[in-house]
């Protein structure tokens, strides 16, 4: 509010403001506040529900998740609810490094992602769909699966009949079945029967190193604790 008043005063050549000017300043302040108060009320409500153990999910969070979380994480969850602080425009503060910045200290005020966040998610899903098509639908058309089934069933590779398919790894039936299946899908390249495939595997799997390292970093950041670790294991 002080910011708006000062702005209005500066625009005014004389030292006093008219009633209508003061009125517009007030209404501007109100709209600014309304948005922030709405968010505060909503978040406070959520927090109260959690503290009152209102739903089963709230109970799980409060009783099991919160005690194992670190203090910083809990603080982060709570402080997320506080809208960004504003500071007085007229008071010149020396710029000082901060962990949590004031809005006007950034290169530009932060904006919510809006529609483009959903667009981003959609493009990733499109990429997944592309993979799915190329991995399951297209190969069925050129008869890869019949070919593949024969190998898994008979244990003989056409490309090298003297190379028996290994079917026991751990001694646990279900796991061995998966490993047999995967090995059959890898062998043509790994054993270098198809040299182009072999090269592709080296290149592709070699370049998974960086994403794996980066996901490792991301999943151990304070902010991502819990949420990402489980996802990471799930998707890998």
């Amino acid at each position, binding site marked *: 509010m002080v910011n708006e008043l000062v702005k209005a005063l500066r625009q005014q050549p004389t030292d006093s403001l008219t009633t209508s000017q003061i009125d517009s300043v007030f209404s501007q302040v109100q709209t600014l506040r309304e948005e922030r108060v709405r968010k505060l009320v909503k978040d406070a409500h959520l927090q109260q529900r959690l503290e009152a153990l209102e739903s089963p999910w709230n109970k799980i969070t409060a009783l099991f998740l919160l005690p194992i979380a670190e203090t910083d994480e809990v603080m982060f969850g709570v402080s997320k609810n506080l809208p960004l602080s504003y500071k007085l425009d007229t008071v010149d503060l020396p*710029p000082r490094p901060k962990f949590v910045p004031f809005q006007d*200290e950034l290169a530009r005020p932060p904006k919510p992602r809006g529609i483009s966040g959903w667009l981003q998610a959609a493009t990733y899903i499109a990429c997944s769909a592309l993979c799915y098509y190329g991995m399951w639908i297209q190969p069925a058309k050129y008869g890869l699966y019949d070919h593949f089934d024969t190998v898994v069933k008979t244990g003989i590779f056409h490309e090298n009949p003297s190379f028996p398919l290994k079917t026991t790894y751990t001694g646990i039936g279900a796991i061995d079945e998966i490993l047999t299946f995967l090995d059959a899908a890898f062998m043509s390249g790994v054993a270098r029967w198809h040299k182009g495939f072999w090269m592709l595997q080296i290149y592709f799997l070699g370049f998974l190193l960086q994403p794996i390292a980066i996901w490792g970093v991301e999943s151990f950041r304070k902010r991502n604790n819990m949420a990402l670790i489980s996802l990471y294991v799930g998707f890998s």
Partner: protein
Amino acid sequence: MPLFYVAYTVISAGEPYWWPLSRDVPPRYSKTILPAVLLGYALPTVLMFWPWKDPNMVQGMTAFWQPSPIYVQILIVIFAYFYNLRYPEPKHNDRKAKDEPRDLKDLKLIYIVTFLIGVFLHFGVVYTLLTSTDPQLSFRTTFVPDIEIRQKSLGEGLRNLWLSDFYGFFLASFLWCSYAVWDLKRVGRANVDVWKASALIALANILFGPGSAMSAVWYWRESAMARTSVPKEEAS
């Protein structure tokens, strides 16, 4: 795997996500991620492609490789546990915003090492393909899909299946990097032209390989997120 990016996009929407405060990776993790990645992923990958003579060994190693991204996570947790025993983290944290963030050096090292491994791999593969006199081993037999629908050998069919996964994944990764730049700009932590940046990322993908490009982007991103005072955008 691109679905992982969807989840990440949803999690990282809020503005507080980008504060330097929540960027922190505790030292027990920042110091152990790199050894865990090398031991848990790089080593099984090398072992898988090692020219073993014994079919049993080749397939055993390939099976051993399968859960390797999970080894990485398990190793990080184990190493972090021992690191914490050796160097327990002080109860009171008196980090100052003007200090160099404690994890920044470790994280940058992770990005540099993975970048160099990627460059090495990229040049190795490109060199092998360029100097190859074997008609079975060329850019065409490695990276160009055969979209014609006809009966294919097992190796060729599998290569096409892998190729669609390869292109789908790295397209999504390229987008993820570009969106990372866009996101940093959105929350006011960077001043770059997103289109130029993404053209640069695309170029890095071609020159150094997709994983290396990702490491480079993350190196830049880490520095931008770690800044506790952000230079103002120049008035244009």
